[in-house]
């Protein structure tokens, strides 16, 4: 078993833990763990810049956002979580079984696949691609960021009497 296989198994296990755990805070930590392992996988596959962004933004910033939102919503009595665990178990118990069965079934399929690819261009570095070849993507990213900022400002705007 190679290191890559171990990393991929850990990736799915972390995602599974994020899905199955009852407490939201643990789910947020599971998601951060998934991002961190995905960053290692990206680095191993030769994508260091995307890996750094994944680690800093997805494992860092998004976890902070999740923890902030969880802390701003109120905590329930302990009995609520015990009841919730029983209720969740009825909906989530098939998930690990489905994943294991799906993994076994897919591992037996070894159909040869042929894919038509465009001829590789002289791309070189990711910075060259970002700034020279994919400028429209950058423009879109800026627009989406601005839309996000405006969205958050609208969401947290103080309500006035005229709004109603």
């Amino acid at each position, binding site marked *: 078993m190679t290191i890559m296989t171990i990393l991929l198994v850990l990736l799915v296990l972390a995602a599974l833990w994020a899905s199955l755990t009852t407490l939201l805070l643990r789910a947020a930590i599971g998601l951060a763990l998934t991002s961190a392992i995905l960053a290692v996988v990206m680095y191993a596959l*030769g994508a260091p810049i995307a890996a750094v962004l994944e680690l800093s933004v997805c494992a860092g910033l998004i976890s902070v956002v999740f923890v902030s939102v969880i802390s701003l919503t109120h905590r329930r009595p302990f009995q609520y979580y015990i009841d919730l665990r029983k209720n969740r178990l009825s909906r989530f118990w098939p998930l690990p079984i*489905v994943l294991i069965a799906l993994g076994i079934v897919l591992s037996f399929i070894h159909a040869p696949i042929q894919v038509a690819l465009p001829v590789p261009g002289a791309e070189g570095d990711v910075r060259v691609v970002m700034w020279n070849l994919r400028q429209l993507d950058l423009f879109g990213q800026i627009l989406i960021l601005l839309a996000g900022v405006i969205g958050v400002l609208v*969401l947290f705007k103080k309500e006035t009497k005229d709004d109603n």
Partner: protein
Amino acid sequence: MTIDLPQSFWLYFIFFVLLLVDGAWCMLATYNLLRMLIGIEILMKSVTFILIVAGYLAHRMALAQAMVITVIVIEVVVVVVAAGVILGFFRAHNSLNVRHTRNLKG
């Protein structure tokens, strides 16, 4: 140009499908809005993973990284705006249960 995908593609593809199913299940089997957001995040992780694998197998890693960076930026904006919506919903209904969205104004 046509290439035969190597055997390692199946390894990556299997784990991509497992992540996809995990994220979809997490979204569909819960009534908690925050947990749904976590499901969306897991789905986006699987998409990010398969983009990187595609770039690795096609030897076009620079393009794949550029696309993954775009996906990550969109992911952050989606999470922040959705978190704001969820907080607003919680302040209005004192609950994160998605069934209470039936009481929305409008």
